């Protein structure tokens, strides 16, 4: 028979790790299932608003979280991706991953968000062959080359600014009539000598042979081709909530929770960036993870 845990925590970013620390201290019988540890915090640049740390980098803070997590004997199922979460009878939830199946009497969804894909031909084929979603990581590999940044919000402007100092020429491909990011960053972009901004422009395809060599762009009713060796896709984030089919989400796919982190299904809670809680911040995700764990603990106490 499959073991039935008290609690399964899906995700090990700031929300999932904090929930796990609380669950360990409540001596709950639980496991954590996650593809990676640290979540988006591990990808953040400088963090200057996490109380107690006046300055810390994302990877350093994520390492601190991990260290805290590993202080406890935690049943950690790493490198596993949840593919479905279903309610079974008698208040038992079934969590299926790409490798195994687990059961628990309560679940916390803390699976966070991931970079949104453009959905154009060539994008998947050339991932890590010129197409990247992390300028901070891969940007320095494009020294002296021509690159395109796709997007017009703050993350796109941030990537574009980083690349003006590294690449030869930087195209900013924005699908809106105007740049939507902060004016301060926009002004810096406009002042950079090696940036070409294309507003109202859509990427139609990413082309190449072994590696990316260009983009097909729809611009002003025409199709243009530009030659670039790198494409940085910075068009925002989507919640990792697709596996939770029975859970009610908002129009953005964010899991709807109440102030006690409850979803529409009793026994299933959610916390952090995957939820509709306003403001996606590391400190907020951590606090929500703590709340979700305490709510799950109370829920289980009432079931007995």
């Amino acid at each position, binding site marked *: 028979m499959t073991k039935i845990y008290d609690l399964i925590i899906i995700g090990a970013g700031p929300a999932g790790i904090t929930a796990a620390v609380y669950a360990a201290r409540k001596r709950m019988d639980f496991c954590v299932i996650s593809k990676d540890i640290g979540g988006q915090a*591990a990808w953040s640049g400088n963090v200057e608003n996490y109380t107690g740390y006046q300055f810390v980098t994302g990877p350093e803070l994520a*390492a601190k979280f991990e260290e805290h997590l590993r202080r406890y004997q935690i049943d950690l199922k790493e490198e596993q991706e949840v593919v479905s979460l279903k309610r079974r009878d008698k208040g038992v939830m079934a969590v299926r991953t790409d490798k195994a199946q687990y059961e628990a009497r309560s679940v916390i969804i803390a699976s966070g968000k991931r970079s949104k894909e453009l959905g154009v031909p060539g994008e998947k084929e050339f991932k890590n062959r010129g197409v990247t979603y992390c300028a901070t*990581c*891969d*940007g*320095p590999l494009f*020294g002296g080359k021509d690159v395109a940044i796709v997007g017009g919000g703050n993350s796109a402007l941030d990537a574009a600014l980083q690349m003006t100092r590294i690449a030869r020429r930087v195209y900013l491909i924005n699908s809106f009539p105007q740049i939507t990011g902060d004016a301060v960053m926009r002004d810096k972009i406009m002042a950079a000598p090696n940036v070409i901004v294309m507003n109202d422009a859509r990427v139609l395809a990413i082309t190449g042979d072994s590696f990316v060599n260009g983009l097909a762009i729809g611009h002003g009713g025409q199709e243009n081709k530009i030659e670039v060796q790198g494409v940085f896709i910075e068009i925002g984030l989507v919640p990792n909530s697709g596996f939770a089919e029975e859970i009610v989400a908002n129009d953005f796919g964010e899991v709807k929770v109440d102030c006690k982190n409850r979803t529409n299904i009793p026994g299933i809670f959610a916390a952090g960036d995957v939820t509709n809680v306003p403001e996606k911040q590391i400190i907020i995700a951590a606090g929500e993870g703590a709340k979700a764990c305490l709510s799950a603990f109370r829920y289980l106490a009432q079931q007995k």
Partner: protein
Amino acid sequence: MAHTVLVYSTATCPYCIRLKQFLAENNIAYENFDVGADRAKADEMVKKSGQLGVPVIEIDGRIIVGFDRPKIQQALGLS
């Protein structure tokens, strides 16, 4: 047995930092190449791994792309 370990990384990539922390915690000596600063090593990494993402780690001639902990542990003979 000592392994020959090469790391191709950039100064800013989070998983490069995690990879180096992991190697340090396990007392694995390695040679690091900053492919953001060293164009020749960047080309070498692309040739060896057939891709443009960092980090890349070479363990006794075997190439592993990304901070793939299970594969790296296996190649290093760590449990």
